[in-house]
Structures are given as C-alpha cells and as structure tokens.
C-alpha cells in the first residue's frame, strides 16, 4: 500500500496539538459560546461575535468612562468585627487578586468637561458582593455628590448581599437607599449601568433605583438566581429570562448600550440632564 502523503491525525495527535496552543490564545464567549482570538477582544474586552462585554476590572472600566478620576475612600475595607477566619482568608485572597480593598471603587470623575460621582463594582472581588464597606463607600459617594450637587453614575456587577456579613450586609441595601433618596430629593440625577452579572440584593436596591437605567448587551440581571428558582418552585427558566434584552422588552431598562458606545452615551446623557438655570 502506497504511503499516503496526507493522513488524518488521530485523536491522540489532535489532543497533543491542541495542548500546544497556549490557553490564553483563545477565549470562549460565555454567551454565544464561540471561540475567538483573545487579542480580538481588544482592550474593551468584548466578544467580536455577539458584543457581550466580559467582566472588567474596576480600574479598566474607570479608564474607559472618564477623562479624570479622583478616588475617594480608597482605604475603606472590611471592618475588623467580621473576624471569621475563613471569611478573612477570602478577603485576603480577593485583595491580592484585584489590588482593591473592597468590591467597589468610588470617586469624583470628569468626562468631556462634566463632573460626576462614579462608583464601579468589580466582580473579581468576592463576586462583587455587597458588604458593609461596599455599602459605606457607595453611601459616602452619594453624600459627597449631594453636597457638591453632582450626578452619580453606578456601574454594577454583583452576586448580591455578602452573606458572610449577615444582617449587616442586608442593612446596606437600606443604608444606600436612604442616601439615594436624599440625593434624589436634592433634584440630582442618578444613572445606573448594569453589567454582567447584577443580581440579588444589589438588583433589589441601588441597581434598580437609577433615574436612567442602562445595561450592556446580554448582561445577566435578576433578583433570584436560576438555581434557587429551579429548586424552590421546580420551574426551569428559559435560557434568556434574565438577559438584558429580556429586561428591556419588559420595560425595566432604558437602553442597552455596547461597550464601545458607552463613554459617548454617558457624556451625552450627562449633558441632556445638566439642567437649565436654577429656580431656587
């Protein structure tokens, strides 16, 4: 039998070849399941196929949305009274991975000459969970902006209230709501940008309290988790039931904005709501 020049590789050979491809070369989009070259995600970190925005580190998001940014309360961190060893260990790891002291970065920002308060949550810090220090930073941001008469923009990414902090975590929802009320009563604008994932107690408080609520394509946004729904009421939710597109259709969002458009959209929105002459 003549030797064939081209022979289909065996499965073993295929696996060996695949092993030689560096893992970081390809990235699979969790929404459309397509593999794409990681470099094609660009620094915006979006899927070139479906526009899904990958989870961003807080500082990367801040660079994308601001001209200048002056951080507030950078040192605020989990209070000592939460002394559980396993929890402290988790925080330590989260700090090491992200370089952050908490799951949110807050500060005063400018964008095309307009000033506003900005808070950006980071899902890489304990799933962006809402702890006491997270709540404290967001509350102070609202208080500062109420005093300085500035709009607030919150970019949310969170699994919800941080259960390790118990009722104290739950109370952050009320504490922040109180600060939102005072900001609102001062006649100021609050914009939320819901990113993947925004769930639980964060959805049930400040994420949904924006005067204008924006989201990124395909972001998961919801209150109860899929597994909780499946286990509690034996119902299998449709695949897209908590995707941004479904929420837009049901009237819970103002717009879905792709990441490359977000900076300009925010600048436009701040301009459209900057108010006429004061009537006070």
């Amino acid at each position: 039998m003549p030797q064939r020049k081209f022979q289909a590789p065996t499965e073993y050979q295929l696996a060996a070849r695949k092993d030689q491809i560096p893992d970081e070369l390809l990235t699979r989009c969790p929404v459309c399941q397509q593999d794409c070259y990681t470099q094609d995600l660009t620094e915006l970190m979006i899927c070139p196929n479906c526009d899904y925005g990958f989870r961003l580190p807080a500082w990367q998001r801040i660079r994308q949305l601001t001209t200048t940014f002056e951080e507030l309360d950078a040192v605020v961190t989990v209070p000592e009274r939460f002394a559980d060893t396993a929890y402290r260990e988790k925080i330590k790891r989260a700090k090491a991975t992200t370089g952050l002291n908490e799951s949110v970065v807050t500060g005063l920002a400018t964008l095309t000459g307009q000033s506003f308060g900005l808070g950006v949550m980071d899902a890489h810090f304990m799933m962006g969970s809402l702890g006491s220090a997270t709540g404290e930073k967001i509350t102070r941001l609202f208080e500062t902006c109420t005093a300085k008469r500035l709009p607030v923009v919150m970019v949310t990414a969170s699994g919800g209230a941080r259960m390790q902090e118990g009722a104290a975590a739950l109370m952050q929802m009320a504490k922040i709501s109180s600060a939102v009320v005072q900001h609102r009563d001062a006649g100021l604008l609050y914009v939320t940008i819901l990113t993947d994932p925004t769930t639980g107690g964060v959805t049930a408080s400040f994420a949904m309290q924006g005067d204008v609520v924006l989201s990124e394509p395909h972001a998961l946004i919801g209150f109860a988790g899929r597994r909780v729904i499946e286990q509690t009421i034996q119902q299998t939710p449709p695949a897209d039931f908590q995707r941004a597109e479904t929420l837009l259709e049901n009237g819970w969002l103002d717009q879905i904005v792709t990441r490359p458009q977000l900076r300009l959209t925010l600048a436009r929105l701040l301009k459209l709501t900057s108010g006429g002459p004061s009537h006070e």
Partner: protein
Amino acid sequence: MNKATAYQQVQAARSANKISIQELIDGLTEDFFELHGDRQRDDDPAVIAGLATIESRPITIVGIQKGQDIAANQARHFGCATPSGYRKALRVMRQAEQLHQPVLALINTPGAYPGVEAEYQGQGRAIADCLLAGQKLKVPFLSIIVGEGGSGGALALACGDQVWMFANSTYSVLSPEGYATILWKDSQRAAEAAEQMRLTPKELLADGMIERIVPEVTTAADCGELKGAVAATLKMLAAQPVATLIKARQARYRKF
C-alpha cells in the same frame, strides 16, 4: 427558651402554629378594613393590606402572610410576595402618607417569591422601590418581624423608624439552608449555619439591628400588651415633626 439553639429558633419562627398575620391584626386593631390590589393589574394574596384603628387612632397596615394550611399556603405561595405584592404595599404606604396616618408592617416571609414571572414583572425593582419609599415615608413607620424575616423580601417592609421582633422569630440575609449550601455545598448543615449567622432576636438586638424583642403571642386574645406597646410607640413617633422623624429614620439606617 434561653437555652434554645439558633436552629430551634429558626424552626419556631417557621412553625405552623405561629399566629397568622390576619389573627394578629384582629388582636391589635379594632376595625380592620382590607384593601386589595396593586392598581396595576393584580392582587397578591401573600400581602395583606388595609385600614384600621388602634386605640381609636387610624393606621395603615401592611403584612406579608403565610397560610395556616396547605391550601391557603399555596394561594399565598408560602408567604413569598410577588412584585405585585410589593406594589400593593407601596400603594398603601403612599396612601397612608396622604392620609397622615402611621404605617404598621407585620412580616412573616421566607423571602421574596423566586420565579420566572416574578423576574419578568421586576421583582428587584419592586423591592428597590419599597426601600426608597420607606426611607422617605412622611408618617410614623413601625416594622415587626413576626416569624421569618427572610432577606430583601422582608427588608422591603422592615425600613421602619423602629424594627421589633417576636421572641420566636429570625431575620437574616438568607436561609440557613441557603447559607450552608453556598458556603459548604451541604444544606444538611443548616443548624451549624444558623449558629454562625446571628439571626436570632437576641443577637440582632445586641448587634443594634432592632429596637425591641416582644413576647410571643399565639391568639388574638393575647395581643393586649403588644397592642399597648404599638399604640404608645406610634403615638410617640407621631408627636415628632415630620422632618425630625425622617431625619432620625435615615440616621438609623446610616449607622449600619
């Protein structure tokens, strides 16, 4: 009672013998006039709302209730309010503001209803709106956790000037079973979770999360003492100027 473990406390809070919110209302008020519907399109039986008098003074009542038997429990989906239920609560809170009468919230819920329809109808937004409304309510607002105070679904109505808990009740960010499942991937360790979670009235009072623990009542006829305490507190709150009341309430939540 003193030696009860945290998990026994959880079981007592969930007990089927717990006084129903309806009976509690009968015991606390003289003439209850129920109000139905969210005025959008639905009426959630898990949320009970209405007008009443307490020591002859008009108040607005809103409660989250379980059923006393299987059929009633199914109708009220086990005390898990839907978005419509929270919108009903919101509607009567605003009405109370208009009528200048205090709001009394009576809470017994494992949590907000988890379901596909509830998500479509904006469960998150419905709770978020209740939190905002509670923080700016221009009338006295007293919240009492009667049985289970489950997570955001309970907090939605627990933004009062004061929050009280029944002796056999719990208030927590999630159920001990949920806590054990997430943390240790084992819902069987709920008892251990309950010990860690600081969800009992005594622990929560010590942590400054609530103002008062009230003795358990089991029938409407038992409610005399509680009624006196509620009436006195609402009267005390009503004596304050509105601005002072709201400022004090916001300060209460600011300290967390």
